[in-house]
């Protein structure tokens, strides 16, 4: 135990003192936040640009319908023909020209109207224009049917079904997605951690081989001790780095929100734009109570359970993958030879993430989700995406969790045993790029 902790300490210090590690630790959050800031900034610039659209209206309709907005303004063009209008609009540098021909009836006017632009137009502008036409056409048809505008609005066109689980508790729309998203975030975290720090473990093993210190060390400690110490030390360094990132990200976003004066609640309001003419105060109250419900629901997510399982899946999953990485590092002489072995490791990780996002989000307890949350190489990620729904009734069946963890433990023991064998032989092999067949042979040494 004494030797193991010595190795862990050395690996940890070697990692955190490494210059590029230090630089990455402090630069990454700045880069991340900087990128977000840049995106926000650019979006603002983009939105501030006012696009001017020329309107050549030869019909008797739409005379007052095209009103300028924050980002678009309309300029009426009169008394010239279409070709001349196109020319002049282009010369002045307008964004586009809306041509409305003179036809006897509205339907025809609408269907023969054209919007000319230099490049293909932005979708938000098209939406604006189409809305105007749609409104006008709808009004016309309503008139034909003899329905007044106020009657039509009172009909309403939005309906959301109430949902509840069998024990009668009310469900909130979208909460499944939110839960899956939280699980997905955990899963994604595991994947990133495995790829980044597994790679560190691998490079550290390669370094010991290329500096030829490996034989000196394993004449003092067991290769397995060295491998384990390396994995643990590197992951502790990783946890340190992640902790610094999370803390500094929170601080930086705080600063960002102050500097750019972003209203965090504004991010949600767009999605919940209620239709109809509900009064401002009532609307606020409604959204507040919805927020309250969501908040309650989020509090009701079994966080302690979730974090416990996150730790279990994280530790087991990480140990499985990083011991494979260590074995790869031991098998090769330099990093360029690792590619052929790395791809098969990344594959199940990517698969887990994609299956998670495309299948588990829609149907957290469907057959695909179940299969991938039992398969040990994908279960750490996929199971975590399912778990926010709870365990037992309404959530993941207890037996699935038990089998998944059991399989993970068995795989963990098996893989670590195999990896340790490859590692033990590989660290003393120089000068030859091994094939998969060589690795199989090493298992028998």
């Amino acid at each position, binding site marked *: 135990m004494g030797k193991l902790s010595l190795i862990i300490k050395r690996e940890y210090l070697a990692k955190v003192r490494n210059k590029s590690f230090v630089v990455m630790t402090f630069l990454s959050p700045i880069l991340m936040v900087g990128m977000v800031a840049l995106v926000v900034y650019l979006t603002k610039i983009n939105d501030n640009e006012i696009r001017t659209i020329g309107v050549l209206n030869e019909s008797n309709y739409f005379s007052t319908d095209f009103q300028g907005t924050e980002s678009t303004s309309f300029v009426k063009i009169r008394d010239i023909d279409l070709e001349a209008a196109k020319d002049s609009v282009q010369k002045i540098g307008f964004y586009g020209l809306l041509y409305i021909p003179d036809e006897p009836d509205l339907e025809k006017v609408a269907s023969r109207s054209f919007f000319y632009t230099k490049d293909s137009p932005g979708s938000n502008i098209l939406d604006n224009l189409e809305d105007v036409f749609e409104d006008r056409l709808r009004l016309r048809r309503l008139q034909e049917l003899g329905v007044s505008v106020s009657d039509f609005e009172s009909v309403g066109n939005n309906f959301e079904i109430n949902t509840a689980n069998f024990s009668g508790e009310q469900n909130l729309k979208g909460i499944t997605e939110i839960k899956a998203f939280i699980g997905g975030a955990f899963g994604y975290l595991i994947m990133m951690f495995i790829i980044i720090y597994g790679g560190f473990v691998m490079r550290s093993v390669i370094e010991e081989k290329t500096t030829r210190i490996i034989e000196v060390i394993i*004449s003092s400690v067991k290769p397995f001790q060295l491998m384990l110490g390396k994995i643990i030390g590197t992951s502790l360094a990783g946890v340190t780095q992640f902790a610094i990132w999370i803390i500094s990200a929170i601080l930086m976003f705080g600063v960002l929100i102050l500097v750019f004066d972003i209203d965090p609640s504004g991010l949600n309001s767009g999605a919940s734009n209620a239709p109809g003419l509900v009064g401002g105060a009532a609307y606020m109250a409604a959204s507040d109570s919805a927020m309250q419900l969501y908040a309650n629901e989020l509090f009701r997510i079994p966080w302690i359970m979730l974090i416990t399982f996150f730790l279990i899946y994280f530790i087991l999953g990480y140990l499985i993958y990083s011991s494979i990485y260590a074995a790869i590092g031991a098998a090769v002489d330099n990093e360029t030879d690792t590619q052929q072995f790395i791809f098969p490791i990344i594959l199940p990780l990517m698969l887990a993430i994609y299956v998670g996002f495309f299948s588990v989000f829609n149907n957290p307890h469907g057959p695909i989700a179940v299969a991938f949350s039992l398969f040990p190489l994908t279960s750490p990620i996929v199971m975590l995406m399912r778990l926010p729904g709870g365990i037992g009734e309404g959530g993941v069946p207890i037996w699935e969790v038990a089998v998944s963890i059991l399989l993970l433990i068995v795989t963990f023991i098996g893989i670590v045993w195999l990896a340790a064998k490859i590692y033990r032989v590989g660290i003393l092999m120089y000068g030859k790029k091994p094939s998969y067949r060589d690795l199989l042979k090493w298992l028998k040494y």
Partner: protein
Amino acid sequence: MNNILVAKEVSKQFGNHIALNKVSLEIPKNSIYGLLGPNGAGKTTLIRIINQIIYPDQGAIYFDGKPLQPHHISMIGYLPEERGLYKSMKVGEQALYLAQLKGLSKADAKSRLKYWFDRLEIGDWWNKKIQELSKGMAQKIQFIVTVLHEPKLLIFDEPFSGFDPINANLIKDEILQLRDKGTTIIFSTHRMESVEELCEYIALIHKSEKLLDGKLSDIKKAYKNNIYKVGLGVQSTNGLLEDLKDKFHILSSEYVDGGIQLNFTVQLPSDDTGPFLSHLSGKANVNNFTETIPSANDIFIRTVQTK
């Protein structure tokens, strides 16, 4: 127990390749033991088995009379042929780490390192990084780390490869002093000259098998074949050589100094030199008469060829 290490019929196979085939050795305490053989003979495999880096398929190793066990690691010092240090670690830190891995306490390791650093006059290197050191400097560190925990058995695999002559001499002197203090030393090498100089005992390993082992002087005795170099002062070419050629097995001969000196080598039927010398007496002046003792290299080549 007079043997620090005994190997009994140790065999090791890698896939289809037999690395060691029933190799038995006895390494006496307080000796310098040469493990000789060409590259790829199996020396390093045997050494790795002694260091418990790999395990034999068959056979057993006894350390100081007891079956080899993990805790024996702290009583063995090993300088591998493929050796190196962490590049980006500081000298002192690294030496401390390696010493602690061998089971020394931090304080103990520190005071012993101070002693050795002063002894080899490298005290001011403590805070340097390995990548700032030259190869010869790094080798001094490696040597110190190998001997620091005062092992009973030291194993050097090709210790002088890569050492410059000055450092090689320095290390040789240190090794001899360690021997005088009671340490047993195993030398693995394919360079025979260093063997003649240092080793009391040798074992020859070739193609995974031990060909011979024992005390170097005994082996030499066994391998000497009664060949003598003789220098005679003669008056003239008076038929003495022809007479000798009739009666003895002359291997080569030549007249030097204008014909007044006859040098030749002769192989006698036994190590009794009496008949030969009495045959010469009265016929010529014996200026010199020496027995040629085979070098380790000769023995090695002869053994490998007769095998």
